[in-house]
């Protein structure tokens, strides 16, 4: 199984030292399979009966994390298995240029995650008051007569729609604000929104190591500006979300 691809040759003394102190799935030793100046860190796995539970994925992540402390690396998706060392070497050779480009992109950089939570019920209640007021005005001006049950139904749905749109627009403006703040630290960022009723933003940043403290300060500033929101900043992580390779 391939854990990661690192920028080092297999004779690299530090790599040998780091790998000798670690064990992979089923307690197997790690091996380094190289092509030129890139190396895949691998370990043998049984052909059948490999356990792929939470504990195995946590072990995998902890190995990648340990390697990441000493090397520039590209994490390889958990469970990526190849038949033999030769096949791995061929894969490295075939994808050498892409791998090198990605290693260059993440060199000296760290990934961080920022989750933004909010009490959407509180926020929706605020938007609801606004929407209801708007719809009441609209209903009297449009129909000028008593509403039917169908029209009341549409009004109810319209309120829900406007609340949802207001929430989305609020989240978009927040993402824009975070993006603007990130230009100062030259972060490459990715955003996902509305993952759950409470987790309104899931952001990922790839920044230079030296910018770590500035990122923490930036998030603290956001909390001051948006006291109703909650933030969780995590990291540093290996660049799990910023590697863009289709292995051939």
């Amino acid at each position, binding site marked *: 199984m391939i854990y990661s691809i690192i920028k080092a040759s297999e004779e690299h003394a530090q790599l040998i030292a780091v790998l000798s102190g670690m064990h992979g799935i089923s307690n197997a030793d790690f091996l380094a399979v190289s092509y030129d100046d890139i190396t895949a860190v691998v370990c043998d796995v049984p052909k059948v009966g490999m356990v792929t539970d939470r504990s195995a994925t946590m072990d995998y992540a902890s190995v990648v994390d340990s390697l990441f402390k000493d090397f520039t690396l590209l994490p390889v998706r958990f469970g990526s298995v190849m038949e033999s060392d030769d096949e791995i070497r061929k894969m490295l050779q075939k994808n050498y240029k892409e791998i090198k480009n990605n290693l260059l992109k993440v060199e000296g950089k760290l990934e*961080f995650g920022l*989750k933004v*939570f909010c009490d959407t019920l509180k926020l929706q209640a605020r938007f609801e008051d606004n929407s209801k007021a708007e719809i009441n005005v609209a209903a009297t001006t*449009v*129909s000028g007569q008593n509403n*039917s*049950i*169908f*029209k*009341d*139904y*549409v009004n109810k*749905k*319209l309120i*829900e*729609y*406007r609340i949802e749109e207001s929430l989305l627009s609020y989240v978009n403006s927040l993402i824009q604000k975070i993006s603007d703040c990130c230009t100062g630290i030259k972060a490459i960022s990715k955003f*996902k929104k*509305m*993952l*759950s009723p*409470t*987790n309104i933003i899931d952001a990922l940043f790839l920044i230079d190591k030296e910018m770590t403290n500035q990122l*923490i300060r930036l*998030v*603290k500033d956001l*909390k001051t500006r948006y006291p109703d929101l*909650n*933030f*969780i*900043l*995590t*990291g540093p*992580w290996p660049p799990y979300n910023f590697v863009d390779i289709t292995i051939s």
Partner: protein
Amino acid sequence: MSENKILFSTGNLEGLAKDIGKMTDTEGSKLKLSPDNADSGLAKLVLTLIELIRKLVEKQAMRRVDGGSLTDEEIERLGETLMKLEMKMEELKKHFNLTDRDLNINLGPLGDLM
């Protein structure tokens, strides 16, 4: 997530961790097909798709209502149609013993379907 990976956090961490846990718990939204439950498994899949389409239609309709491009009669007819669709959907959910949560498939890192 190990504690030492948290660089800064605000609010009740335990509560937030529960929220994250709910998001990654995909057990409830898995489609479990077996010879014993082929009917309900398939019903869940089909109703999920119908509900997604119904919600999209409803959203598009509200966008038009909000834009003010519909006449009073059109709004009336739209309300009747949407209401009947929702009632029919409720009937089908009840028939197959499904809840809203069952039809809202968790797409893992992409969040919930609806």
